[in-house]
């Protein structure tokens, strides 16, 4: 696989990104750049602003100030659909699916969006075999082919999390944002997802952002770690360096998240 993007150029960057909820500044003046072929872990205690930072980058929330650049273009004023179309994909921390539709329909909706077929009113949904096959392919990748026709609302939690990942993959994004993808999964489900993330990273052309509390996971996958604390970016750099820096020892490991290590 080749991409037009020269690795030196960031595909995604934030500049002084800030959001205020009433008096509370959830993300405060955060600047960072993300390059293709890298996996950046974003860590920080609960309520640090990690999910909010993701929401600002993928367009779920509008920034109070600062900007977001995607493939060299300022997308600060664009909504989530437009940013998704430009190649940014989310798997949500709190599962966020279509509960009364079947598993395959959920993935198929992502495939269809990627294929730009949403406005087709006259052909039969079920006739688009190639889209259906792609949807099935992504279900296979998260080991959920057997649940194909189950209604999503009735799935156990671990399966919903895996489906989140399948939907993200189905969007075929250049930038993949995982928000605690393995939280609440059973022990035998976790390796499936980690192996998947590992494979995507190994392709070398995708940009991966991963919010993760489990330090062993972060150590095994991340090329770089960003630490958020109270909305501020307090550390950014090489994993071993960041983990041993005093500010992280204090800000992160000192707040009761240490038991995840």
């Amino acid at each position, binding site marked *: 696989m080749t991409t037009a993007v020269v690795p030196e150029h960031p595909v995604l960057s934030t500049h002084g990104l800030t959001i205020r909820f009433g008096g509370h500044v959830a993300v405060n003046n955060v600047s960072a750049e993300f390059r293709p072929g890298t996996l950046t872990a974003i860590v920080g205690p609960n309520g640090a602003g990690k999910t909010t930072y993701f929401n600002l980058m*993928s367009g*779920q929330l509008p920034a109070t100030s600062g900007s977001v650049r995607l493939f060299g273009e300022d997308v600060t004023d664009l*909504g*989530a*659909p*437009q940013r*998704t*179309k430009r190649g940014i994909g*989310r798997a*949500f921390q709190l599962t*966020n*699916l*279509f*509960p*009364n*539709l079947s598993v395959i*329909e959920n993935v*198929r*909706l*992502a495939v*269809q*969006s*990627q294929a730009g*077929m*949403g*406005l*087709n*009113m*006259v*052909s*039969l*949904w*079920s006739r*688009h075999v190639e889209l259906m096959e792609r949807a099935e392919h992504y279900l296979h990748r998260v080991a959920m082919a057997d649940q194909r026709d189950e209604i999503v609302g009735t799935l156990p939690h671990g399966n919903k999390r895996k489906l989140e990942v399948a*939907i993200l993959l189905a*969007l075929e994004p250049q930038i993949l944002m995982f928000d605690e993808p393995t939280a609440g999964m059973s022990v035998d489900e976790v390796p499936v997802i980690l192996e998947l993330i590992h494979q995507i990273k190994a392709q070398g052309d995708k940009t991966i952002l991963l919010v993760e509390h489990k330090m062993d996971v972060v150590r095994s996958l991340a090329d770089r770690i960003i630490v958020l604390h109270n909305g501020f970016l307090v550390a950014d750099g090489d994993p071993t360096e960041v983990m041993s820096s005093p500010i992280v020892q204090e800000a992160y490991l000192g707040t009761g998240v240490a038991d995840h290590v």
Partner: protein
Amino acid sequence: MLKSILSGDFPRSRILSIMLVLTFIGLAVAPFMLSGARPLNTAATICIFIVLVASYDLLLGYTGIVSFAHTMFYGIGAYGVGLALDAMGPSWWAVFTGLASALALALVLALMIGLFSLRVRAIFYAMITLAVASAFAILASQLSDFTGGEDGKTFKVPEILSPGFKLIEAEIFGRSIDGKLLTYYLVFTACLLLFLFMLRVVNSPFGRVLQAIRENDFRAEALGYRTVVYRTLANCLAALIAALAGALMALWLRYVGPKTFLSFEVMTDILLIVVIGGMGTLYGAVVGAALFIFAQNYLQSLMAEASEALAGVPILAQAVHPDRWMLWLGILFVLSVYFFPTGIVGKLRNRK
């Protein structure tokens, strides 16, 4: 073949299939089975309401949009054809002009309401549609020189559709082939095609996006679907189909007036039928409209007979007096919502 006609959306319940086939056959042969104006009027009303209610379900059941402006679009279609025939005389050109202007107006209004207000919360959207629809109804009554005001207008339809017209001298199955019969089949065919078209739309890629928006609009956006665009398109589509239903009804009745086409009662009828039949399934519109319109037209006469039969029994005779028919319809509605919260179709599909 059948799969393609029904867009792969089968009834998925034996009883429902039987009900649908019976309704279809009943409506298809109605003019030959029934004599008199009233039964045929009931059949035509059922046809048109199936389309009107199904188009509303596109919004409410499939997309999750609560709108109270559906009768306005129905009225626009009816007034467009009616006023054009009244002003230009009974020609097909008048029908065409009236229909085209009505569709254009419906489209513009649906687009405007959609773009201005589909971004806001659902409850505000409902209020805005209510306000616009009320304003439109008042306007239609006030402009009485143009619209006939409260009394509405009667008009002549193109000759081939007028009751006096005879296509052939002979009778078929004891029924003369007159303009009324031709109008009925125009209504029937148009409604059938519109229904099948909607069935296709809800089972298309676009239709699945509408359902996704109903389920979780936040996630639909995250997948790259601009929900405002989809909602607005659904709004326009529903409005255009409602306008077509109104135009058919105007041709059938050879009359337009605010009570029949713009009143809030029509809106509540639509809501009741959607809920009774089952939201989010177009077959619900068929079953719901057939039962509801039938009850509306015949409950009163059934009750009159029952009341006579029970003349001696003091309370019962009073209870089934024809003047109480609204009460009974209300009770039927409450019971049906209580026992079939997912509507008749939902209930039938879940029995296994």
